[in-house]
């Protein structure tokens, strides 16, 4: 089919004044709920579904899609400003973004996030327009063994997330994996580690764990010895990126976009790995890996781009095959059906105006987001001038309300408190929270795909090395470990001759 003509059709739909308005409302709402911790795109789209009844199908879907990728932009804002990530992707941004904010560089951090996201969003949308069907086909080659291998690779590569002891980081990942197993086993229905509480059957809520272990733990730490030090940020230096900053973010943005685009296409949970993988890659490739964890701008640029690219390309399986890649996409399926359109392989042919209209609107939405977010940076940074003693009660409240609103489950609220204490204690004893979160999101996937692969292969573990994609991924995983271990062995040899520092 003629792509140019199709895109022309798409833009004619997307540039309809009403649709531009819906797109704007969508990205604005998305940004706002992304900024509010707890309340995420899932909750917002669910709440807004009834309103979209009265809109045209194109308008409704453009608006809902806008909420989703708008929230990806907004989500990084709170992660950077107050260390409160609302989603797995922004958890990575919090690592270096919050450190930058503490050093008075919140402006550049936010600008990096916005620019990186815009670039990634544009590339992701182009991929969606030009290659969606073949990419979706390719992604279908990923079965359980491939996902298992991919997750193992992701976990091993991500040890780089830690800027302290590798042993502790490993232990935190494993602890996260275990916490991810809380709840009903999907294979047998057996409730695990639930203490008989039915509310825990569907597992611990990610937002609760993230908000507790990052946000609340940070508050508890800041309340230590308040009078002795200034807990909040240094004076804001500048709002915009310096020439040097631009140089530093260019490559990470491109690499993050590539990684994110590829992983986002995989419907079995690839998008979750995107930002973690990008962070690890940047740290490995950086000439100054020691800066990571202390405010490295590459640590914001890479993951943010990866995350936004994945957000765009995760529409590919939905739009071309009708397969939802994650809960937000499942909601989009619901939105399609409510509009009288069953998403599936035929949408592209039966509803070309809708299909191309949504794609075109995504790019327009990305333009709006960057125009909306860049001026907002000044406002957000001003927010940091609110004294911390007034800010932190608001953070606690937002966290509770947001988590409660997701499922109306009070145990999600209790979990914030529990993980706040856990995070605080572990932080005091030198363990960082990011690896734990990575383990937490990947734990259930790791187990699910391992067990499924074994069932389908009827208990034959060679399935992981006889299938080419899975074998390649596992080979890369081994390579990653070797590369990680070699320098430390070399360093150990040197250390023998060096006195303790």
């Amino acid at each position, binding site marked *: 089919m003629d792509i140019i003509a199709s895109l022309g059709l798409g833009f004619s739909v997307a540039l309809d004044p009403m649709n531009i308005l819906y797109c704007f409302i969508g990205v604005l709402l998305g940004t706002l*709920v992304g900024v*509010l911790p707890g*309340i995420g795109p899932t909750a917002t789209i669910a*709440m807004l579904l009834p309103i979209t009844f009265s809109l045209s199908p194109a308008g409704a879907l453009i608006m809902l899609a806008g909420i989703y990728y708008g929230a990806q932009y907004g989500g990084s804002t709170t992660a950077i400003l107050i260390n409160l990530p609302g989603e797995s992707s922004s958890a990575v941004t919090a690592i270096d973004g919050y450190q930058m904010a503490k050093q008075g560089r919140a402006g550049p951090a936010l600008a990096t996030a916005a620019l990186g996201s815009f670039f990634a969003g544009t590339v992701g949308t182009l991929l969606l327009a030009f290659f969606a069907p073949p990419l979706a086909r390719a992604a279908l080659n990923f079965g359980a063994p491939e996902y298992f291998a991919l997750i193992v690779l992701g976990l091993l590569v991500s040890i780089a997330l830690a800027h302290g*002891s590798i*042993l*502790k980081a*490993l*232990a935190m990942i*494993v*602890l996260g*994996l*275990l916490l991810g*197993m809380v709840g009903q*086993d999907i*294979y*047998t229905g*057996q409730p*695990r*580690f639930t203490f008989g509480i039915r509310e825990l059957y569907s597992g611990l809520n990610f937002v609760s764990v993230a908000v507790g272990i990052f946000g*609340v733990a940070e*508050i*508890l730490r800041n*309340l*230590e*010895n*308040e*009078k*002795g030090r200034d807990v909040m940020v240094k004076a804001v230096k500048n709002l915009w990126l310096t020439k040097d900053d631009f140089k530093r973010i260019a490559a990470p943005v491109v690499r993050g976009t590539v990684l994110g685009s590829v992983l986002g296409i995989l419907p079995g949970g690839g998008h979750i790995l995107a930002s973690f993988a990008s962070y690890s890659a940047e740290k490995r490739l950086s000439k100054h890996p020691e800066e990571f964890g202390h405010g490295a701008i590459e640590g914001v640029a890479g993951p943010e781009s990866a995350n936004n690219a994945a957000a765009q390309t995760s529409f590919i399986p939905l739009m071309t095959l009708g397969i939802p890649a994650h809960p937000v996409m499942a909601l989009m399926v619901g939105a399609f059906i409510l509009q009288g359109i069953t998403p599936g392989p035929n949408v592209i042919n039966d509803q070309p105006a809708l299909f191309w209209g949504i794609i075109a609107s995504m790019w327009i939405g990305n333009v709006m987001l960057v125009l909306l977010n860049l001026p907002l940076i000044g406002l957000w940074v001003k927010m940091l001038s609110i004294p911390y*003693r*007034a800010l932190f*009660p*608001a953070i*606690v*409240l*937002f966290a*509770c*309300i947001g988590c*409660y609103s997701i499922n*109306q489950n*009070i145990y999600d*609220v*209790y979990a*914030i*408190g529990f993980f*706040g*204490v856990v995070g*605080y204690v*572990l932080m005091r*004893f*030198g*363990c960082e929270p990011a690896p734990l979160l990575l383990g937490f999101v990947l734990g259930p996937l*790791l*187990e699910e795909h*391992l*067990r499924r692969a*074994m*069932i389908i292969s009827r*208990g034959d*573990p060679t399935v992981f090395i006889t299938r080419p994609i899975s074998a390649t991924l596992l080979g890369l995983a081994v390579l990653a470990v070797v590369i990680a271990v070699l320098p430390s062995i070399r360093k150990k040899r040197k250390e023998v001759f060096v006195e303790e520092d």
Partner: protein
Amino acid sequence: MAVSNFSTKDLVSGGIFVVAGAYFALEALNYEVGTPFRMGPGFMPLFLGSVLAGLGLAVAASGWKKPDTEERLTPSWRGIVLIIGVVIFFGATIRGLGFVPVVLVSSFVAALSSRLNSPLFSILLAITLTVMCTLIFVVGLGMSVPWFGPWLGM
């Protein structure tokens, strides 16, 4: 003391990992471990729990001869008790008392957990936050929770 030769940080965090790993592994013994073909619900937690306990030992051992150098601040017990208390209070009463009273009390108490906040400042902050949150979440986002809950007879 022998411990002085150790990093307290590594010793304690290692200990936490050992205890957590042991808990998951032992609890997993109550679930079916299964076969490689059909792994049971106990398989992964048992394996990972043991790994975690092992890593915990390694973390503790890695602290040998590396006593902590930096001084640690004393935790703010007032902060911990009040903040965690607020979270529990919020969860326990949101259905019964309704949005407005719970947010008002929660933000007041949360504000008090900082020694820098006077009671008057906390009250003002609580009122501001309550108005803001009600507008954003209940009015703006249409969160389905009563303003005042059934316990208040409304």
